[in-house]
Protein backbone atom coordinates (compact mmCIF):
# COMPACT_ATOMS: atom_id res chain seq x y z
CA UNK A 1 0.00 0.00 0.00
CA UNK A 2 3.00 2.33 0.35
CA UNK A 3 6.33 2.31 -1.35
CA UNK A 4 9.15 0.73 0.53
CA UNK A 5 11.53 3.17 2.09
CA UNK A 6 15.13 2.72 1.06
CA UNK A 7 17.26 0.82 3.53
CA UNK A 8 19.58 2.94 5.63
CA UNK A 9 22.74 1.54 7.08
CA UNK A 10 22.68 2.32 10.74
CA UNK A 11 26.49 2.47 11.03
CA UNK A 12 26.61 5.69 9.02
CA UNK A 13 24.46 7.58 11.46
CA UNK A 14 25.85 9.49 14.41
CA UNK A 15 25.45 7.47 17.58
CA UNK A 16 23.30 8.86 20.34
CA UNK A 17 26.11 8.56 22.88
CA UNK A 18 28.05 11.06 20.83
CA UNK A 19 25.34 13.68 21.19
CA UNK A 20 26.48 16.80 22.97
CA UNK A 21 23.68 17.81 25.22
CA UNK A 22 22.88 21.43 26.00
CA UNK A 23 22.71 21.94 29.75
CA UNK A 24 19.90 23.70 31.53
CA UNK A 25 20.39 27.16 33.02
CA UNK A 26 22.11 27.02 36.41
CA UNK A 27 19.45 29.10 38.15
CA UNK A 28 16.99 26.36 37.33
CA UNK A 29 18.33 24.46 40.35
CA UNK A 30 17.10 27.32 42.54
CA UNK A 31 13.70 27.22 40.85
CA UNK A 32 13.45 23.53 41.66
CA UNK A 33 14.56 24.17 45.26
CA UNK A 34 11.85 26.78 45.74
CA UNK A 35 9.20 24.64 44.07
CA UNK A 36 10.14 21.56 46.07
CA UNK A 37 10.12 23.57 49.28
CA UNK A 38 6.62 24.85 48.54
CA UNK A 39 5.45 21.33 47.69
CA UNK A 40 6.91 19.77 50.85
CA UNK A 41 5.49 22.56 53.01
CA UNK A 42 2.06 22.01 51.46
CA UNK A 43 2.23 18.35 52.46
CA UNK A 44 3.38 19.24 55.97
CA UNK A 45 0.63 21.81 56.43
CA UNK A 46 -1.90 19.28 55.16
CA UNK A 47 -0.75 16.73 57.75
CA UNK A 48 -0.78 19.33 60.53
CA UNK A 49 -4.27 20.49 59.63
CA UNK A 50 -5.50 16.91 59.74
CA UNK A 51 -3.81 16.44 63.09
CA UNK A 52 -5.39 19.60 64.43
CA UNK A 53 -8.92 18.63 63.42
CA UNK A 54 -8.72 14.88 64.06
CA UNK A 55 -6.26 14.56 66.95
CA UNK A 56 -7.67 11.18 67.97
CA UNK A 57 -7.28 9.56 64.58
CA UNK A 58 -5.39 6.30 65.06
CA UNK A 59 -2.74 7.08 62.47
CA UNK A 60 -1.42 9.98 64.59
CA UNK A 61 -0.19 7.54 67.22
CA UNK A 62 2.64 7.00 64.75
CA UNK A 63 3.41 10.68 64.29
CA UNK A 64 7.16 10.14 64.62
CA UNK A 65 7.00 7.69 61.77
CA UNK A 66 5.00 10.18 59.69
CA UNK A 67 7.54 12.91 60.45
CA UNK A 68 10.41 10.57 59.63
CA UNK A 69 8.90 9.52 56.31
CA UNK A 70 8.28 13.16 55.41
CA UNK A 71 11.89 14.03 56.24
CA UNK A 72 13.26 11.09 54.26
CA UNK A 73 11.10 12.07 51.31
CA UNK A 74 12.32 15.69 51.56
CA UNK A 75 15.94 14.56 51.56
CA UNK A 76 15.28 12.28 48.58
CA UNK A 77 13.66 15.14 46.66
CA UNK A 78 16.57 17.49 47.31
CA UNK A 79 19.21 14.92 46.35
CA UNK A 80 17.25 14.13 43.19
CA UNK A 81 17.21 17.82 42.20
CA UNK A 82 20.99 18.00 42.12
CA UNK A 83 21.64 14.65 40.49
CA UNK A 84 18.86 15.11 37.97
CA UNK A 85 20.14 18.58 37.08
CA UNK A 86 23.60 17.28 36.29
CA UNK A 87 22.15 14.64 33.95
CA UNK A 88 19.33 16.54 32.22
CA UNK A 89 20.05 17.99 28.82
CA UNK A 90 18.63 18.51 25.37
CA UNK A 91 19.97 18.71 21.86
CA UNK A 92 18.46 20.15 18.71
CA UNK A 93 19.51 18.12 15.73
CA UNK A 94 18.85 18.16 12.06
CA UNK A 95 16.05 15.60 12.18
CA UNK A 96 14.93 15.50 15.79
CA UNK A 97 14.95 17.00 19.23
CA UNK A 98 16.48 14.76 21.84
CA UNK A 99 16.06 15.17 25.58
CA UNK A 100 17.39 13.16 28.47
CA UNK A 101 16.50 13.32 32.12
CA UNK A 102 16.03 11.15 35.17
CA UNK A 103 17.40 10.22 38.56
CA UNK A 104 16.70 6.59 39.43
CA UNK A 105 15.08 5.88 36.08
CA UNK A 106 16.79 7.56 33.17
CA UNK A 107 14.84 8.62 30.12
CA UNK A 108 15.92 9.56 26.63
CA UNK A 109 13.13 11.05 24.54
CA UNK A 110 13.47 11.59 20.85
CA UNK A 111 11.01 13.71 18.89
CA UNK A 112 11.37 13.57 15.09
CA UNK A 113 10.86 17.06 13.67
CA UNK A 114 8.59 15.77 10.93
CA UNK A 115 6.15 14.52 13.57
CA UNK A 116 5.94 17.70 15.65
CA UNK A 117 2.62 19.50 15.30
CA UNK A 118 3.44 22.65 17.19
CA UNK A 119 5.51 24.02 20.03
CA UNK A 120 5.04 26.68 22.66
CA UNK A 121 6.89 28.64 25.33
CA UNK A 122 5.46 29.17 28.77
CA UNK A 123 6.66 30.10 32.22
CA UNK A 124 5.18 30.01 35.69
CA UNK A 125 5.55 32.63 38.41
CA UNK A 126 8.72 31.24 39.99
CA UNK A 127 10.39 30.66 36.61
CA UNK A 128 9.70 34.28 35.61
CA UNK A 129 11.40 35.55 38.78
CA UNK A 130 14.57 33.81 37.67
CA UNK A 131 14.16 34.75 33.99
CA UNK A 132 13.49 31.22 32.83
CA UNK A 133 10.88 29.58 30.62
CA UNK A 134 9.96 26.14 29.36
CA UNK A 135 9.46 24.88 25.84
CA UNK A 136 6.70 22.37 25.07
CA UNK A 137 6.68 20.26 21.95
CA UNK A 138 3.51 18.50 20.86
CA UNK A 139 3.03 15.49 18.62
CA UNK A 140 -0.08 13.54 17.70
CA UNK A 141 0.75 11.06 20.44
CA UNK A 142 -0.64 10.95 23.92
CA UNK A 143 -0.49 14.32 25.72
CA UNK A 144 1.35 12.80 28.69
CA UNK A 145 4.15 11.69 26.40
CA UNK A 146 4.77 15.12 24.96
CA UNK A 147 8.03 16.88 25.60
CA UNK A 148 8.45 19.71 28.08
CA UNK A 149 11.93 21.14 28.47
CA UNK A 150 12.05 23.21 31.64
CA UNK A 151 14.73 25.55 32.86
CA UNK A 152 15.86 27.40 29.77
CA UNK A 153 16.59 31.13 29.63
CA UNK A 154 13.61 32.99 28.16
CA UNK A 155 15.60 34.20 25.14
CA UNK A 156 16.89 30.74 24.30
CA UNK A 157 13.42 29.30 24.77
CA UNK A 158 11.99 31.77 22.28
CA UNK A 159 14.77 30.92 19.83
CA UNK A 160 14.10 27.20 20.16
CA UNK A 161 10.40 27.79 19.65
CA UNK A 162 11.08 29.76 16.48
CA UNK A 163 13.52 27.15 15.22
CA UNK A 164 10.97 24.37 15.74
CA UNK A 165 8.20 26.37 14.07
CA UNK A 166 10.45 27.08 11.11
CA UNK A 167 11.37 23.41 10.83
CA UNK A 168 7.70 22.42 10.90
CA UNK A 169 6.97 24.83 8.08
CA UNK A 170 9.89 23.48 6.06
CA UNK A 171 8.57 19.96 6.55
CA UNK A 172 5.07 20.92 5.53
CA UNK A 173 6.19 22.21 2.19
Amino acid at each position, binding site marked *: *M*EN*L*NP*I*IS*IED*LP*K*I*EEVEYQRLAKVYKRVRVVETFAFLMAILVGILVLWYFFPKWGIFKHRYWIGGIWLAYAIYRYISIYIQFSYTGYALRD*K*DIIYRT*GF*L*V*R*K*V*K*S*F*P*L*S*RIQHSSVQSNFIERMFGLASVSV*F*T*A*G*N*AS*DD*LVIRGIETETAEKINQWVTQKIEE*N*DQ
Partner: protein
Amino acid sequence: MMWELLAIIYPLITLIAAFIKLKTFKYYVLDQSLIIEFGLFKKEKINIPFKKITSVNIEERFLHQPFNLGLMKIETAGSNKTEGEIPSLELNKAIALKEYILNHSVSDHQVVETIENPPLLRMSSKEVLIYGITNNHLMTSIWVIGIAWVYFWRLREVFGKEWVNNITTNYIFHWQNLSFYLLFAMVVFIIAIFVSVIRNFLRFEGFTLYQDTLSYQYKAGLIDKRNHIIPYKKLQFLRVKTNWWRKKWNIYTISLRQTQGGRGEKQNSKTEASFPVFSKERYIKFLNTYYKDLSETSSANKIHFSYWIRLSIFPIIITFLAFIAFSWYYKTTWMLLGVIPIILYQIIANMIFVKKYRYFINEDALQIESGLWGKKIELIQWKNVQNVIITQTILQRRKNLCNIQLVTASGLLRIPYLKYQDALNVQHHIIMITAQSSKSWN
Protein backbone atom coordinates in the same frame (compact mmCIF):
# COMPACT_ATOMS: atom_id res chain seq x y z
CA MET B 1 -51.05 19.63 36.05
CA MET B 2 -47.66 21.06 35.32
CA TRP B 3 -46.22 17.67 34.37
CA GLU B 4 -49.14 16.70 32.23
CA LEU B 5 -48.83 19.92 30.29
CA LEU B 6 -45.14 19.25 29.77
CA ALA B 7 -45.89 15.74 28.62
CA ILE B 8 -48.04 17.14 25.83
CA ILE B 9 -45.92 20.15 24.93
CA TYR B 10 -42.53 18.45 24.80
CA PRO B 11 -43.36 15.89 22.08
CA LEU B 12 -45.19 18.56 20.15
CA ILE B 13 -42.15 20.82 20.15
CA THR B 14 -39.89 17.94 19.14
CA LEU B 15 -42.23 17.12 16.29
CA ILE B 16 -42.35 20.71 15.07
CA ALA B 17 -38.56 21.02 15.35
CA ALA B 18 -38.14 17.81 13.36
CA PHE B 19 -40.55 19.06 10.72
CA ILE B 20 -38.71 22.40 10.44
CA LYS B 21 -35.40 20.58 10.11
CA LEU B 22 -36.86 18.33 7.43
CA LYS B 23 -38.30 21.23 5.44
CA THR B 24 -35.22 23.43 5.68
CA PHE B 25 -32.61 20.69 5.27
CA LYS B 26 -30.58 21.09 2.11
CA TYR B 27 -27.40 19.53 0.88
CA TYR B 28 -25.61 20.25 -2.31
CA VAL B 29 -22.25 20.09 -3.99
CA LEU B 30 -20.62 23.38 -4.85
CA ASP B 31 -17.11 24.16 -5.89
CA GLN B 32 -15.51 20.89 -4.80
CA SER B 33 -17.17 20.88 -1.44
CA LEU B 34 -20.26 19.47 0.18
CA ILE B 35 -22.58 21.99 1.78
CA ILE B 36 -25.23 21.13 4.33
CA GLU B 37 -27.77 23.74 5.38
CA PHE B 38 -30.60 23.61 7.88
CA GLY B 39 -32.46 25.73 10.42
CA LEU B 40 -35.21 28.30 10.34
CA PHE B 41 -34.41 30.86 13.03
CA LYS B 42 -30.83 29.88 13.62
CA LYS B 43 -29.43 28.93 10.27
CA GLU B 44 -26.58 26.52 10.16
CA LYS B 45 -24.37 26.00 7.17
CA ILE B 46 -21.64 23.41 7.12
CA ASN B 47 -19.07 23.55 4.38
CA ILE B 48 -16.90 20.50 3.95
CA PRO B 49 -14.25 20.65 1.21
CA PHE B 50 -13.86 17.28 -0.51
CA LYS B 51 -10.13 17.33 0.02
CA LYS B 52 -10.58 17.28 3.79
CA ILE B 53 -12.95 14.34 3.80
CA THR B 54 -11.37 11.14 5.00
CA SER B 55 -14.35 8.88 5.18
CA VAL B 56 -18.02 8.67 4.36
CA ASN B 57 -20.05 6.14 6.29
CA ILE B 58 -23.56 5.02 5.48
CA GLU B 59 -25.53 3.48 8.30
CA GLU B 60 -28.81 1.68 7.88
CA ARG B 61 -30.48 1.95 11.23
CA PHE B 62 -33.50 -0.03 12.26
CA LEU B 63 -36.01 2.62 11.24
CA HIS B 64 -34.23 3.28 7.97
CA GLN B 65 -34.45 -0.24 6.66
CA PRO B 66 -38.16 -0.56 5.77
CA PHE B 67 -37.99 2.73 3.84
CA ASN B 68 -34.75 1.84 2.08
CA LEU B 69 -33.03 4.89 3.53
CA GLY B 70 -29.59 5.51 4.95
CA LEU B 71 -27.84 7.84 7.36
CA MET B 72 -24.72 9.39 5.97
CA LYS B 73 -21.85 10.48 8.17
CA ILE B 74 -18.97 12.49 6.81
CA GLU B 75 -15.69 12.62 8.66
CA THR B 76 -12.71 14.83 8.12
CA ALA B 77 -9.10 14.74 9.17
CA GLY B 78 -9.31 17.77 11.39
CA SER B 79 -11.54 16.51 14.12
CA ASN B 80 -12.61 13.27 15.65
CA LYS B 81 -16.29 13.97 15.78
CA THR B 82 -18.49 13.58 12.77
CA GLU B 83 -18.22 16.71 10.71
CA GLY B 84 -21.42 16.50 8.75
CA GLU B 85 -24.44 14.28 8.88
CA ILE B 86 -27.31 13.74 6.48
CA PRO B 87 -29.94 12.04 8.64
CA SER B 88 -31.80 10.16 5.95
CA LEU B 89 -31.56 9.90 2.23
CA GLU B 90 -32.43 7.19 -0.27
CA LEU B 91 -29.92 4.43 -0.25
CA ASN B 92 -29.00 4.45 -3.93
CA LYS B 93 -28.59 8.23 -3.80
CA ALA B 94 -26.41 7.88 -0.73
CA ILE B 95 -24.14 5.34 -2.41
CA ALA B 96 -23.84 7.48 -5.52
CA LEU B 97 -23.03 10.59 -3.47
CA LYS B 98 -20.49 8.68 -1.43
CA GLU B 99 -18.72 7.46 -4.53
CA TYR B 100 -18.73 10.94 -5.97
CA ILE B 101 -17.28 12.45 -2.80
CA LEU B 102 -14.64 9.78 -2.34
CA ASN B 103 -13.56 10.04 -5.95
CA HIS B 104 -13.09 13.77 -5.56
CA SER B 105 -11.65 13.74 -2.05
CA VAL B 106 -8.50 12.06 -3.26
CA SER B 107 -6.09 14.76 -4.20
CA ASP B 108 -3.67 12.32 -5.80
CA HIS B 109 -4.18 10.37 -8.98
CA GLN B 110 -5.51 7.35 -7.11
CA VAL B 111 -9.09 6.42 -7.74
CA VAL B 112 -11.20 4.63 -5.22
CA GLU B 113 -12.49 1.35 -6.48
CA THR B 114 -15.97 0.60 -5.39
CA ILE B 115 -16.51 -2.41 -3.23
CA GLU B 116 -17.16 -4.90 -5.96
CA ASN B 117 -14.03 -6.97 -5.51
CA PRO B 118 -14.47 -10.15 -3.46
CA PRO B 119 -14.52 -9.60 0.29
CA LEU B 120 -11.37 -10.19 2.26
CA LEU B 121 -13.15 -11.59 5.30
CA ARG B 122 -16.63 -12.80 6.01
CA MET B 123 -18.41 -14.19 9.02
CA SER B 124 -21.20 -16.75 9.01
CA SER B 125 -23.92 -16.75 11.64
CA LYS B 126 -22.38 -19.85 13.19
CA GLU B 127 -19.10 -18.05 13.59
CA VAL B 128 -20.84 -15.07 15.19
CA LEU B 129 -22.44 -17.49 17.65
CA ILE B 130 -19.13 -19.15 18.50
CA TYR B 131 -17.44 -15.79 18.97
CA GLY B 132 -20.22 -14.78 21.36
CA ILE B 133 -19.91 -17.99 23.38
CA THR B 134 -16.13 -17.73 23.68
CA ASN B 135 -16.31 -14.16 24.94
CA ASN B 136 -14.79 -13.38 28.31
CA HIS B 137 -17.86 -13.70 30.50
CA LEU B 138 -16.34 -12.33 33.68
CA MET B 139 -17.18 -8.70 32.91
CA THR B 140 -20.71 -9.55 31.74
CA SER B 141 -21.22 -11.70 34.86
CA ILE B 142 -20.29 -8.80 37.10
CA TRP B 143 -22.81 -6.64 35.25
CA VAL B 144 -25.49 -9.28 35.62
CA ILE B 145 -24.80 -9.61 39.35
CA GLY B 146 -24.93 -5.84 39.76
CA ILE B 147 -28.25 -5.57 37.97
CA ALA B 148 -29.64 -8.57 39.89
CA TRP B 149 -28.59 -6.92 43.16
CA VAL B 150 -30.40 -3.69 42.31
CA TYR B 151 -33.57 -5.54 41.31
CA PHE B 152 -33.43 -7.74 44.38
CA TRP B 153 -33.61 -4.69 46.63
CA ARG B 154 -36.45 -3.32 44.53
CA LEU B 155 -38.37 -6.49 45.37
CA ARG B 156 -38.63 -5.27 48.93
CA GLU B 157 -41.19 -2.77 47.72
CA VAL B 158 -43.23 -5.51 46.04
CA PHE B 159 -43.08 -8.42 48.46
CA GLY B 160 -42.43 -6.53 51.69
CA LYS B 161 -39.52 -6.29 54.06
CA GLU B 162 -39.96 -9.66 55.72
CA TRP B 163 -39.73 -11.67 52.54
CA VAL B 164 -36.44 -10.01 51.64
CA ASN B 165 -35.05 -10.47 55.14
CA ASN B 166 -36.06 -14.11 55.02
CA ILE B 167 -34.12 -14.64 51.80
CA THR B 168 -31.04 -12.74 52.93
CA THR B 169 -30.69 -14.55 56.26
CA ASN B 170 -31.55 -18.00 54.95
CA TYR B 171 -29.74 -17.99 51.62
CA ILE B 172 -27.52 -15.07 50.74
CA PHE B 173 -25.67 -14.53 53.99
CA HIS B 174 -25.86 -18.17 54.95
CA TRP B 175 -22.39 -19.54 54.30
CA GLN B 176 -23.34 -23.21 54.56
CA ASN B 177 -25.75 -23.03 51.66
CA LEU B 178 -23.32 -24.04 48.94
CA SER B 179 -25.86 -25.37 46.48
CA PHE B 180 -27.60 -22.01 46.42
CA TYR B 181 -24.34 -20.32 45.42
CA LEU B 182 -23.63 -22.89 42.74
CA LEU B 183 -27.09 -22.48 41.30
CA PHE B 184 -26.77 -18.70 41.42
CA ALA B 185 -23.37 -18.81 39.70
CA MET B 186 -24.75 -21.08 37.00
CA VAL B 187 -27.73 -18.85 36.33
CA VAL B 188 -25.49 -15.78 36.16
CA PHE B 189 -23.11 -17.59 33.80
CA ILE B 190 -25.92 -18.66 31.47
CA ILE B 191 -27.35 -15.13 31.41
CA ALA B 192 -23.88 -13.74 30.70
CA ILE B 193 -23.40 -16.10 27.75
CA PHE B 194 -26.85 -15.22 26.47
CA VAL B 195 -26.12 -11.49 26.74
CA SER B 196 -22.81 -11.71 24.90
CA VAL B 197 -24.27 -13.88 22.16
CA ILE B 198 -27.03 -11.32 21.60
CA ARG B 199 -24.54 -8.46 21.66
CA ASN B 200 -22.34 -10.19 19.12
CA PHE B 201 -25.26 -10.81 16.81
CA LEU B 202 -26.20 -7.14 17.01
CA ARG B 203 -22.64 -6.17 16.24
CA PHE B 204 -21.30 -8.74 13.80
CA GLU B 205 -24.18 -10.40 11.96
CA GLY B 206 -23.52 -10.25 8.23
CA PHE B 207 -19.92 -9.11 8.68
CA THR B 208 -18.07 -8.60 5.42
CA LEU B 209 -14.76 -6.80 5.04
CA TYR B 210 -13.45 -5.38 1.80
CA GLN B 211 -10.23 -3.73 0.86
CA ASP B 212 -9.64 -1.09 -1.76
CA THR B 213 -6.72 1.11 -2.69
CA LEU B 214 -7.33 3.58 0.13
CA SER B 215 -9.12 1.84 2.95
CA TYR B 216 -10.54 -1.16 4.66
CA GLN B 217 -14.32 -1.17 4.75
CA TYR B 218 -16.66 -3.44 6.58
CA LYS B 219 -20.39 -3.84 6.91
CA ALA B 220 -21.97 -5.46 9.93
CA GLY B 221 -24.93 -5.35 12.26
CA LEU B 222 -28.25 -7.04 12.76
CA ILE B 223 -30.57 -4.10 13.45
CA ASP B 224 -28.35 -1.14 12.61
CA LYS B 225 -26.35 -2.08 9.55
CA ARG B 226 -23.21 -0.04 9.68
CA ASN B 227 -20.63 0.58 7.05
CA HIS B 228 -17.26 1.35 8.60
CA ILE B 229 -14.44 2.80 6.61
CA ILE B 230 -10.91 2.75 7.91
CA PRO B 231 -8.54 4.68 5.64
CA TYR B 232 -4.94 3.46 5.67
CA LYS B 233 -3.92 7.02 6.47
CA LYS B 234 -5.74 6.87 9.78
CA LEU B 235 -4.57 3.40 10.67
CA GLN B 236 -1.75 3.56 13.22
CA PHE B 237 -1.10 -0.04 14.05
CA LEU B 238 -2.65 -3.44 14.07
CA ARG B 239 -3.21 -5.79 16.97
CA VAL B 240 -4.16 -9.47 16.91
CA LYS B 241 -5.20 -10.94 20.22
CA THR B 242 -6.51 -14.22 21.50
CA ASN B 243 -6.93 -15.90 24.86
CA TRP B 244 -6.28 -19.52 25.75
CA TRP B 245 -9.88 -20.56 25.25
CA ARG B 246 -10.22 -18.89 21.89
CA LYS B 247 -6.84 -20.13 20.74
CA LYS B 248 -8.15 -23.67 21.15
CA TRP B 249 -11.04 -22.75 18.86
CA ASN B 250 -8.66 -20.98 16.48
CA ILE B 251 -10.30 -17.60 16.95
CA TYR B 252 -8.28 -14.39 16.78
CA THR B 253 -9.48 -10.84 17.31
CA ILE B 254 -7.99 -8.22 15.02
CA SER B 255 -8.08 -4.58 16.15
CA LEU B 256 -7.31 -1.73 13.82
CA ARG B 257 -6.02 1.14 15.89
CA GLN B 258 -6.86 4.52 14.39
CA THR B 259 -5.94 8.10 15.19
CA GLN B 260 -7.56 9.45 18.30
CA GLY B 261 -8.24 12.79 16.72
CA GLY B 262 -7.42 16.15 18.17
CA ARG B 263 -6.02 16.97 21.56
CA GLY B 264 -8.51 17.20 24.38
CA GLU B 265 -11.19 15.38 22.48
CA LYS B 266 -12.68 12.36 24.13
CA GLN B 267 -11.49 9.02 22.95
CA ASN B 268 -14.42 7.14 21.52
CA SER B 269 -15.09 3.71 20.21
CA LYS B 270 -14.45 4.88 16.70
CA THR B 271 -10.70 4.77 17.31
CA GLU B 272 -10.67 1.01 17.47
CA ALA B 273 -12.39 -1.26 15.02
CA SER B 274 -12.13 -4.87 16.04
CA PHE B 275 -13.48 -8.08 14.59
CA PRO B 276 -12.69 -11.79 14.78
CA VAL B 277 -11.08 -14.11 12.25
CA PHE B 278 -11.45 -17.86 12.41
CA SER B 279 -8.11 -19.34 11.49
CA LYS B 280 -4.43 -18.59 11.79
CA GLU B 281 -4.11 -18.41 8.00
CA ARG B 282 -6.75 -15.71 7.82
CA TYR B 283 -5.07 -13.41 10.32
CA ILE B 284 -1.74 -13.92 8.58
CA LYS B 285 -3.47 -13.09 5.31
CA PHE B 286 -4.82 -9.93 6.93
CA LEU B 287 -1.39 -8.95 8.28
CA ASN B 288 -0.12 -9.38 4.74
CA THR B 289 -2.70 -6.95 3.41
CA TYR B 290 -1.58 -4.34 5.95
CA TYR B 291 2.13 -4.85 5.60
CA LYS B 292 3.34 -8.42 5.96
CA ASP B 293 3.75 -11.05 8.61
CA LEU B 294 7.27 -10.30 9.77
CA SER B 295 7.56 -13.51 11.77
CA GLU B 296 7.88 -15.35 8.48
CA THR B 297 10.48 -13.17 6.86
CA SER B 298 12.60 -11.64 9.63
CA SER B 299 14.62 -13.32 12.34
CA ALA B 300 13.29 -13.25 15.89
CA ASN B 301 14.80 -11.00 18.55
CA LYS B 302 14.44 -11.92 22.18
CA ILE B 303 14.40 -9.80 25.28
CA HIS B 304 16.69 -10.35 28.25
CA PHE B 305 15.68 -13.20 30.52
CA SER B 306 15.99 -11.11 33.71
CA TYR B 307 12.69 -9.43 32.80
CA TRP B 308 10.93 -12.23 34.71
CA ILE B 309 12.25 -10.74 37.97
CA ARG B 310 10.72 -7.39 37.17
CA LEU B 311 7.45 -9.07 36.22
CA SER B 312 7.32 -11.20 39.38
CA ILE B 313 8.28 -8.70 42.10
CA PHE B 314 4.97 -6.89 42.51
CA PRO B 315 2.64 -9.90 42.19
CA ILE B 316 4.79 -11.76 44.76
CA ILE B 317 4.69 -8.87 47.23
CA ILE B 318 0.93 -8.49 46.80
CA THR B 319 0.30 -12.23 47.25
CA PHE B 320 2.46 -12.24 50.37
CA LEU B 321 0.66 -9.27 51.89
CA ALA B 322 -2.74 -10.72 51.04
CA PHE B 323 -1.89 -14.05 52.67
CA ILE B 324 -0.38 -12.42 55.73
CA ALA B 325 -3.50 -10.30 56.16
CA PHE B 326 -5.68 -13.36 55.63
CA SER B 327 -3.90 -15.58 58.12
CA TRP B 328 -3.70 -12.77 60.63
CA TYR B 329 -7.43 -12.20 60.33
CA TYR B 330 -8.33 -15.87 60.72
CA LYS B 331 -5.52 -16.48 63.24
CA THR B 332 -4.02 -19.39 61.33
CA THR B 333 -0.48 -20.03 60.16
CA TRP B 334 -0.94 -23.02 57.85
CA MET B 335 -2.62 -20.74 55.33
CA LEU B 336 0.75 -19.13 54.66
CA LEU B 337 1.77 -22.41 53.01
CA GLY B 338 -0.72 -21.57 50.28
CA VAL B 339 1.65 -18.80 49.21
CA ILE B 340 4.22 -21.25 47.89
CA PRO B 341 2.34 -22.77 44.93
CA ILE B 342 0.94 -19.40 43.87
CA ILE B 343 4.33 -17.75 43.90
CA LEU B 344 5.92 -20.71 42.13
CA TYR B 345 3.24 -20.50 39.47
CA GLN B 346 3.83 -16.76 39.03
CA ILE B 347 7.57 -17.23 38.69
CA ILE B 348 7.33 -20.10 36.21
CA ALA B 349 4.59 -18.35 34.22
CA ASN B 350 6.64 -15.17 33.99
CA MET B 351 9.75 -17.10 32.96
CA ILE B 352 7.86 -18.83 30.16
CA PHE B 353 6.28 -15.50 29.15
CA VAL B 354 9.73 -13.91 28.81
CA LYS B 355 11.11 -16.95 26.97
CA LYS B 356 8.24 -16.80 24.49
CA TYR B 357 8.40 -13.02 23.98
CA ARG B 358 9.88 -11.99 20.66
CA TYR B 359 9.96 -9.13 18.25
CA PHE B 360 10.74 -8.88 14.57
CA ILE B 361 12.22 -5.89 12.83
CA ASN B 362 12.79 -4.90 9.27
CA GLU B 363 13.35 -1.56 7.58
CA ASP B 364 9.64 -0.68 7.47
CA ALA B 365 7.95 -2.29 10.39
CA LEU B 366 8.05 -3.85 13.83
CA GLN B 367 6.12 -6.87 14.99
CA ILE B 368 5.86 -7.84 18.64
CA GLU B 369 4.60 -11.26 19.68
CA SER B 370 3.88 -12.16 23.27
CA GLY B 371 1.58 -14.18 25.44
CA LEU B 372 1.64 -17.12 27.80
CA TRP B 373 -1.72 -18.83 27.44
CA GLY B 374 -3.08 -16.66 24.71
CA LYS B 375 -1.30 -14.63 22.11
CA LYS B 376 -0.85 -10.96 21.25
CA ILE B 377 0.66 -9.71 18.03
CA GLU B 378 1.28 -6.05 17.30
CA LEU B 379 2.37 -4.83 13.91
CA ILE B 380 3.39 -1.23 13.36
CA GLN B 381 5.07 0.60 10.54
CA TRP B 382 7.90 2.85 11.68
CA LYS B 383 6.43 5.87 9.92
CA ASN B 384 3.49 5.85 12.32
CA VAL B 385 5.67 6.44 15.37
CA GLN B 386 5.28 9.94 16.84
CA ASN B 387 8.14 9.84 19.33
CA VAL B 388 10.45 7.41 21.04
CA ILE B 389 11.18 7.14 24.76
CA ILE B 390 14.00 4.99 26.10
CA THR B 391 13.96 4.36 29.85
CA GLN B 392 16.62 2.73 31.96
CA THR B 393 16.51 1.85 35.65
CA ILE B 394 19.60 1.48 37.82
CA LEU B 395 19.52 -2.30 37.60
CA GLN B 396 19.09 -2.19 33.84
CA ARG B 397 22.06 0.16 33.54
CA ARG B 398 24.31 -2.44 35.11
CA LYS B 399 23.33 -5.01 32.50
CA ASN B 400 23.21 -2.46 29.69
CA LEU B 401 19.52 -3.04 29.06
CA CYS B 402 16.61 -0.65 28.66
CA ASN B 403 12.92 -0.39 27.79
CA ILE B 404 11.70 1.34 24.68
CA GLN B 405 8.32 2.99 24.22
CA LEU B 406 6.99 3.89 20.81
CA VAL B 407 4.34 6.58 21.12
CA THR B 408 1.78 6.53 18.30
CA ALA B 409 -1.29 8.63 17.66
CA SER B 410 -3.29 5.72 19.01
CA GLY B 411 -1.51 4.56 22.14
CA LEU B 412 1.81 3.10 23.19
CA LEU B 413 3.85 0.10 22.15
CA ARG B 414 6.55 -1.19 24.50
CA ILE B 415 9.48 -3.52 24.26
CA PRO B 416 10.97 -4.24 27.69
CA TYR B 417 14.51 -5.30 28.58
CA LEU B 418 16.17 -5.12 25.22
CA LYS B 419 19.84 -4.31 24.67
CA TYR B 420 20.61 -0.61 24.96
CA GLN B 421 22.42 -0.56 21.64
CA ASP B 422 19.44 -2.18 19.90
CA ALA B 423 17.14 0.46 21.34
CA LEU B 424 19.43 3.21 20.09
CA ASN B 425 19.45 1.64 16.64
CA VAL B 426 15.67 1.49 16.64
CA GLN B 427 15.49 5.12 17.69
CA HIS B 428 17.85 6.18 14.91
CA HIS B 429 15.97 4.19 12.36
CA ILE B 430 12.70 5.83 13.37
CA ILE B 431 14.23 9.29 13.13
CA MET B 432 15.49 8.56 9.63
CA ILE B 433 12.24 6.96 8.44
CA THR B 434 10.00 9.69 9.83
CA ALA B 435 12.20 12.36 8.30
CA GLN B 436 11.53 10.88 4.88
CA SER B 437 7.82 10.22 5.11
CA SER B 438 5.21 12.89 5.51
CA LYS B 439 2.98 13.39 8.49
CA SER B 440 0.57 10.53 8.71
CA TRP B 441 -1.69 11.15 11.66
CA ASN B 442 -4.48 12.56 9.55
